[in-house]
């Protein structure tokens, strides 16, 4: 079987990540000479399935009551069943929390091999190869996955979307035999304030590091600047670990992978693990007191000054130049 199966969660809709995943899946299916299939899980799967059907050859809807919301053990059981039935050569997922969590376990259940954080995926003879950053973004590796199926989560937003097909793929409902697994159970879910407009979709990001010095700097300096620029706020791990801002703000290897037009790094060194999250940013700019900070090696423009002096003045100037309408 040479088919490629992509896994989508209804709650995320057909966002940039889902579209990139479908694009990656379509190209891989073309290379391996198979079809592109999708499975959509969770409440509202039917609606998303209709959209996905425009780019996929077949879509399976898995929205029975036990799957209405994410529970890791139950979802894993369901996915293993779907995959055993359709016997794909490759299973692709996005880079959301659930995909990252499920990938290695699903591979294990199917007797396959997994890889994560893929930025390229291709067929090479009998094997599937996945390109990814390693060593905190300091090196690039190509992994050869030896067992089949290959189960891979991708930096989905970095892939070009799939072109719509002339005829929509078939949408069918999965008939799954699901025993609720109660050994673990999500009992509460919370969204962080600001988590609504997702950092991954932001066009301008103002990001602060340890050099900000405390939560006040984020509130009194960076937030008004971000508002002025219509930007989202983000942070380095050091700032998150200090408890100044929520962990959902973290950008980097183990945080969000963002793709803005402008990423303004304020008081951030630019460690490779931080840069791993902004390699797709179009323009990086930095404010830092240290002229030798690695961040400047990745920046198109920068200023070597204390951010506490720069930011208030910058706000004033931007207000004047951009006018009230901006």
């Amino acid at each position, binding site marked *: 079987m040479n088919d490629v199966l992509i896994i989508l969660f209804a709650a995320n809709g057909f966002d940039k990540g889902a579209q990139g995943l479908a694009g990656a899946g379509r190209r891989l299916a073309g290379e391996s000479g198979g079809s592109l299939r999708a499975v959509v899980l969770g409440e509202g799967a039917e609606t998303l399935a209709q959209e996905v059907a425009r780019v996929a050859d077949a879509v399976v809807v898995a929205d029975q009551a036990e799957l209405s919301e994410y529970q*890791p*053990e139950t979802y894993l059981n369901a996915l293993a069943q779907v995959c055993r039935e359709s016997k794909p050569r490759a299973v692709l997922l996005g880079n959301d*929390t659930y995909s*990252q*969590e*499920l*990938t*290695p*376990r699903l591979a*294990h*259940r199917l007797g396959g*091999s*997994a890889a*994560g954080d893929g930025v390229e995926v291709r067929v090479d003879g009998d094997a599937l190869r996945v390109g990814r*950053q*390693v*060593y905190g973004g300091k*090196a690039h*590796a*190509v*992994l*050869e*996955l*030896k067992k089949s199926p290959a189960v891979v989560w991708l930096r989905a937003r970095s892939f070009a979307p799939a072109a719509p097909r002339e005829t929509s793929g078939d949408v069918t409902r999965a008939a799954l035999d699901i025993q609720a697994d*109660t050994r*673990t159970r*999500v*009992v*509460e*879910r*919370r969204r962080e304030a600001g*988590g609504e407009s*997702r950092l991954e979709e932001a066009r301008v990001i103002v990001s602060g590091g340890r050099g900000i010095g405390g939560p006040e700097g984020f509130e009194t300096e960076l937030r008004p600047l971000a508002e002025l*620029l219509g930007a989202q706020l983000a942070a380095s791990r050091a700032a*998150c*670990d200090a*408890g100044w801002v*929520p*962990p*959902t703000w973290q950008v980097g*290897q183990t945080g969000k992978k963002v793709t803005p*037009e*402008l990423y303004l790094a304020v008081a951030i060194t630019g460690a490779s*693990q931080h840069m791993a999250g902004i390699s797709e940013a179009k323009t990086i*700019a930095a404010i830092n007191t240290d002229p030798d900070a*690695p961040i400047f*090696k990745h*920046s*198109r*423009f*920068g*200023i070597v*000054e204390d951010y506490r002096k*720069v930011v208030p*003045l*910058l706000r004033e*100037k*931007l207000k004047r*130049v*951009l006018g009230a309408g901006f």
Partner: protein
Amino acid sequence: MNILVCLKQILDPEVPARDFRVDAARREAEQGSANLVTNIFCENALETALQLRERAGGATITVLSYGRPTAEDSLRKALAMKADAAALVLDEGEGTPDPLNVARVLAAAIKRLGAFDLVMTGREAGDWGAGQTGGLLAEELGLPCVSFVDGIEVEGGRLRLRRQTDTGWELFEATPPVVVTVTNDEHNVPRIPKVRDVMMSYRQPLTKLTPADLGLAADGNDYYEVAELSIPQKETRCDFAGGDTLDEKVEAFARHVVEVTRGM
């Protein structure tokens, strides 16, 4: 409660990019003058376990590593942080074992070491960044798994696990035994052991095993192999805002910002 924490020793991830080299032929990183350290997320996991022990009024914490003889240092440091027991499975093979091989060895060692209510790993290791061992270990042990956990409470015989998600967090109830992978957060920044405790840790017992002792053959990487390893060349020339006064410099910087945002 019996807790087991998996620790991986890695090349110091803080090595700056300009000092980092790879051996492309062997497809391995060169150590150069870099130190070997415990992976940060493993230390976050150990810190979470230590705090859990303090709050729950007792628990036994065992640390386990599969690695080269040098990994003993990571385990000793964990003992100095006040883990109760340590075990090292010596990796005598060539090259780097793939995540499935690692999970098989760790699972066999865990079964040998005892019965655990909670098995903890880091979310990923700062070298290869696979992020797979916790999940594969859960499958090898036939246990459920919760990833990206940053806080654990005991309630009766059950665990309450808080984990980070893309958009916020989720609270889990779990019946032990369970595997968790741990991520960083303001509450689990690892404590620094006292120098005296580090010295003392070298006198504490440490179990040493080999894969053969656990009935495992070294059969090479059948899960995945590193086919290529390279260092990407990417540097941008930075236009530093110039000027004699702060005002002039910020003015130049602001002009750049406006240019980029207008062009969007």
